[in-house]
């Protein structure tokens, strides 16, 4: 446990080595540093997790305070780490999946001129993410939060020579900033109320001092939710994520699918006490999650770019996590986070392999018939898709999604409406996932496969595929063995959803069957439509309403259009009108004032000793006068 600090320190050291080593490092050395630091970190994380499970700490968590940065009365920000069961899950996923993606990147980025820069940013990202999930106080958490945001910005705009990428990076940064501002206000509110930065103390005090439904609790929870919405790309701040696909594909896999975008889920789960005290905010979480998963599910259906399909699917899956959080099924959300990290990273990496072998072709309509050419990619992609679609019984995604749907139905905070939204979402997920697989891997060959992936691409794919299948057998419904390992492991950190355990088993089985049926229906329908009767699809697309719906969904329900009209255009207009910035003139005035003072006072520097001596003498007189006069 005393090695805890090494987990974030190793990637940070890797970043520093890469950043300062610069071009002196060979590519091989950069790869070794970049991958090795995260790999070592993953090993340490495994050891720490094993110890955590083997000899659990006395309380709910292990605490390591490295040092106190400064100490002034109540303000004592420490560099300290907090490791409870939830953190263990997050740390394992971040380092494990992070390591696989780093390994994959060695091959994926092999020809890129920014090879070292890429690994430097990636290492910094992993370090920041680990700081974020391991922080024991708000300041450190915020440092990690902004750190991952910075890395996300840097990596989306990684190929900065193309203006489009730079714009996408800016969009991501600005949109998430809206949420971050809310979150910062929330953090200030908490610190102001409780005079401490320590997260656990805050939660304890909040539970003691605020009653359920208190206005202050609702405000704090709502502000934190704002931050979570931005980072996790939920309604109404979801628009940045599809554009974030401008970054290299491993970045999309690691940051914009597996880890960073789930930081919002982490934040809400970490502060679940607040949300329990604020039912209104919690209900908002559930409703936003449900709405997001539906809207982005429809959008995914219409996308043409393979990465955008996956991006909308990510938004939708995080919607599920929010739905789970909203109904109080905290551990179900973390469960889905874990399985989603496996299969979504897999899908992105598989998509990357496809894109790479087709000379950076991303349009799925220009793909097809790849299953023969890229067998390993195909089979692993298939496994990931099955998990995403929630193929019953054999995939991890099925178990985690089923748990969320069941919680949405049976939890005291849930209800039929939320459940129905989740069910429709499950159907949609199956539909667009199968569509994607059909268009990319089946049908006639349209592109030429230029290269086949090497072992560094294949190995992560295979490992993640295996995890996407077996990763769900740690928590199953009662009808299927009733394994409760995951939930019980997290119980020390996160309470059970109220009412879920008490609900009858027969109901649970029935719900499971309905959910399975929805998923299977989606898979079969898409298979029939896109493999058997492509004409029908084209026919629908040609109809006026079909084309309109497609365009509407392709553009992500017109949010970009709306925001463009609502915020961007007026802002640009205001900026144009205020070209000479009347506020700026005040600042210019201040600057001019001080430079005037400067010009006045600089005359005292004459360079003449007699004047300087006179200055000393006058100063002495003045000082004497002050002292004797004040007396």
């Amino acid at each position, binding site marked *: 446990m005393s090695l805890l600090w090494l987990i974030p320190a190793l990637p940070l050291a890797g970043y520093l080595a890469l950043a*300062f080593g*610069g071009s002196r490092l060979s590519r091989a050395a950069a790869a070794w540093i970049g991958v090795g630091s995260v790999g070592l970190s993953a090993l340490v994380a495994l050891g720490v997790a094993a110890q955590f499970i083997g000899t659990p700490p006395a309380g709910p968590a292990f605490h390591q305070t490295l*040092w*106190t*940065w*400064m100490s*002034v009365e109540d303000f004592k920000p420490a560099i300290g780490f907090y490791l409870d069961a939830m953190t263990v899950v997050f740390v394992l996923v971040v380092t494990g999946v992070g390591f696989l993606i780093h390994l994959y990147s060695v091959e994926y980025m092999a020809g890129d001129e920014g090879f070292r820069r890429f690994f430097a940013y990636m290492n910094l990202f992993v370090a920041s993410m680990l700081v974020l999930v391991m922080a024991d106080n708000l300041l450190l958490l915020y440092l990690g939060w902004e750190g991952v945001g910075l890395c996300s910005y840097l990596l989306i705009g990684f190929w900065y020579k193309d203006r489009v990428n730079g714009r996408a990076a800016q969009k991501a940064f600005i949109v998430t900033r809206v949420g971050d501002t809310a979150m910062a206000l929330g953090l200030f509110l908490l610190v102001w109320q409780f005079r401490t930065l320590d997260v656990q103390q805050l939660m304890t005090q909040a539970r003691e001092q605020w009653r359920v439904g208190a206005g202050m609790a609702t405000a704090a929870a709502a502000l934190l939710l704002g931050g979570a919405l931005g980072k996790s790309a939920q309604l109404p701040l979801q628009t940045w994520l599809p554009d974030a696909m401008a970054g290299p594909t491993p970045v999309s896999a690691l940051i914009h699918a597996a880890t960073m975008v789930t930081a919002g889920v982490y934040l809400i789960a970490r502060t679940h006490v607040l949300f329990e005290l604020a039912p209104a905010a919690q209900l908002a979480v559930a409703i936003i999650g449900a709405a997001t998963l539906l809207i982005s599910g429809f959008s995914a259906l219409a996308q043409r770019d393979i990465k955008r399909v996956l991006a909308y699917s990510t938004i939708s899956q995080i919607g599920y996590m929010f739905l789970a959080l909203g109904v109080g099924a905290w551990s179900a959300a973390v469960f889905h986070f874990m399985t989603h990290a496996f299969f979504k990273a897999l899908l992105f990496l598989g998509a990357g392999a496809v894109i790479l072998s087709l000379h950076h072709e991303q349009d799925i309509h220009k793909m097809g018939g790849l299953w023969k050419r890229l067998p390993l990619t195909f089979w692993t992609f298939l496994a990931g898709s099955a998990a995403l679609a929630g193929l019953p019984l054999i995939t991890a995604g099925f178990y985690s999604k089923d748990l969320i749907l069941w919680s949405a139905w049976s939890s005291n905070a849930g209800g039929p409406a939320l459940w129905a939204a989740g069910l429709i979402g499950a159907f949609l997920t199956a539909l667009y996932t199968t569509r994607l697989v059909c268009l990319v891997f089946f049908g006639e060959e349209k592109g030429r496969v230029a290269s086949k992936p090497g072992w560094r691409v294949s190995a992560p794919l295979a490992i993640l595929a295996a995890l996407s299948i077996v990763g769900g057998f740690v928590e199953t419904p009662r009808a299927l063995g009733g394994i409760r390992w995951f939930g019980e492991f997290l119980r020390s950190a996160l309470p059970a959803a109220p009412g879920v355990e008490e609900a009858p088993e027969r109901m649970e089985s029935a719900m499971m069957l309905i959910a399975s049926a929805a998923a299977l229906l989606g898979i079969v329908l898409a298979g029939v439509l896109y493999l058997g009767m492509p004409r029908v699809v084209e026919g629908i697309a040609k109809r006026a309403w079909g084309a309109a719906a497609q365009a509407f969904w392709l553009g992500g329900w017109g949010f970009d259009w709306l925001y463009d009209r609502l915020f961007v255009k007026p802002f640009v207009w205001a900026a144009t009108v205020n070209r000479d910035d009347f506020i700026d003139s005040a600042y210019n005035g201040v*600057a001019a004032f*001080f*430079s005037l*003072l*400067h*010009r006045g*006072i*600089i005359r*005292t*520097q004459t*360079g003449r*000793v007699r*004047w*300087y*001596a006179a*200055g*000393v*003498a*006058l*100063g*002495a007189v*003045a*000082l*004497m006068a*002050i*002292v*004797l006069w*004040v*007396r």
Partner: protein
Amino acid sequence: MSSADWIAISPLIAVAAAAVVVMMLAAFWRRHAIVAAASMIGLAVALFCVLPARSAAPRMVTGLLAIDEFGLFYVGLLLKGSLAVAAVSYGYLRARGRDAEEYYALLLTATLGCVTLAVSAHFVSFFLGLEILSVSLYALIAYTRERARSIEAGIKYLVLAAGSAAFLLFGMALLYAEYGAMGFAPLAKALKASGGANVYMLAGMALILVGAGFKLAAAPFHLWTPDVYEGAPAPATAFVAGVSKVAMAALLLRFLTQLGATDSRPILIALSALAVASMFAGNLLALLQRNVKRILAYSSIAHIGYLLVAFIAAGPMGAEAATFYLAAYMITTLIAFGVVAALSPRDRDADAMEDYQGLFWRRPWMGGAFVAALLSLAGIPLTAGFIGKYFVVASGIGSALWALVLILALNSAIGLFYYLRSVVAVYARPGEEAKAADRAPGFSLAGGVALAVLGFSLILLGVYPAPLLRLIQTAIASL
């Protein structure tokens, strides 16, 4: 004097002995490298002597020197600073070629003056320490005598320092005339017995503040600073700015604390006036300056202003803040002037902004160190300067000095302008000319190591200040 006395003042003896040894070496064996190494070894030995001296502390040696945790903390700090200056000087003087040997003897005597000030508890040692320092500095400032500027700076410093020493002496005389004591502790006792401040005491204190203010370059006694900083060879400037001021501040801290002057309203108001004047004068003068050495000179004036805020803040909190601030300030200043020294060509000092254009792209490490120093001066987080300024502000708020803290904040904002402008220059793309002239003639391995250690300390103190703070707390507790 008992054997414990000898152990207690062994750091001072070591420095004095080193000065004599170096002078003899220079007389018989004019080899720059050997003389430089000997002086660095001498300083290291003196630094080592601080450990046995600590075991002998606290102890008054003959009523003149107070060897306590506070004094020894500053002795250690000053010796480290002096060691860094010696290391940086080597490359600088080597690039200039000849007559480098006396420099080290002067550096050592100047260091002796500094450490004497740090442990002085008596007017006699106060004045003698100050004069040893001043006399050595006259020669160090004028050391590159082939340059008219250097000679001019030396003469200016000579005339003005001698003048200000007269004020100081007169102040001491007034206190002695009134209370019949010259030791700080007897003086404090007599002061208490006489029932508080009277005209002689206040006038004497004001005059002593004039002398101390001159050495610290507090406004309005600051006018010499830019000219002297600019004219003096860069390593000597580093010593004047980084080391000698710390010594003077340490003495002032001890003097004011022991005499309980921080409880006297007129003295506090006088100090506040100095602080406010220094902050504004320093920052406003630096605003549009293009000469890097002058910018650093003006900036140091402003920093003395910030420091005085901590002096004014009552209690151990203020003294701790001041001490941390001084440590951070010394490290930062030494880095900045160390880089200037390393970049200086043979015939002049690298003091034009153009010399730093694109430094980061030409010499990333040196550029990085310079930027780190500038950011620390500006008080940006993760540097020692930030923590220092933070403590000063916290101590000011703790004593409810709202006006001073507000002025400090305003001045920090003004200061950002010229610090960041320098940072921008360092990161700008180097012009072709600068590329062609890409040399660091004053760079040496010793100087590089010193800069690296200083830079590392700068960041370390910004991230992990706790150990130093503990040390400072024990030091202040002994005051």
